[in-house]
């Protein structure tokens, strides 16, 4: 079975700071990778995804993530955060061909951006 580890449970940054949230997964086969964001009181929205190809993927709102296969990592980055980025961020994986298994999520990172 897959597992996902997010290293930072709480992150506090000031506006304009750079952001990097760590995500590592464990699985012997091939996976598809996702980052979802949950703004306060709202549902999950997809930030970006990686299936294949260029390991550097760009998502919405200026976010990007890099898949490093040798490290089983899929870290999320943003060069300059805004107050509106305050939210819960979830890394998730799903095994290729295993859509019926559902997503396996990390425990989330609560990001607070201070004005």
């Amino acid at each position: 079975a897959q597992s996902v580890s997010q290293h930072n449970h709480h992150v506090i940054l000031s506006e304009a700071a750079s952001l990097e949230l760590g995500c590592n997964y464990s699985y012997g086969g091939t996976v598809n990778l996702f980052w979802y964001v949950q703004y306060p009181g709202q549902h999950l929205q997809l930030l970006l995804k990686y299936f294949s190809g260029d390991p550097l993927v760009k998502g919405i709102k200026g976010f990007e993530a890099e898949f490093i296969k040798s490290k089983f990592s899929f870290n999320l980055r943003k060069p300059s955060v805004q107050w509106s980025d305050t939210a819960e961020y979830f890394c998730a994986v799903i095994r290729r061909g295993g859509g019926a298994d559902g997503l396996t999520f990390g425990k989330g990172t609560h990001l607070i951006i201070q004005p």
Partner: protein
Amino acid sequence: DTAVSQTPKYLVTQMGNDKSIKCEQNLGHDTMYWYKQDSKKFLKIMFSYNNKELIINETVPNRFSPKSPDKAHLNLHINSLELGDSAVYFCASSQDGTGHNEQFFGPGTRLTVL
């Protein structure tokens, strides 16, 4: 138009009651899911339903049962509610069951068991 909708948004009930949460998607997707988000925000898959095939996470108590009247709906029935069932329940859908597509999530139903 809401892609994935759930009702109700909030549900407060007593222990031992039976309740249902409805989910509908208007995306024409083949696969639907139920996830549970606990008080620490941890999300865990409960069920997936694809082409009349139900896959159950083995940790889910059999008091929980999904029912799919048609491809666009996957409702969640919970019998004999317990305090530990208090959580936010999210419905989601994806185009197919390959895992090669984004999952779209509903707004969630916050269940509080007293």
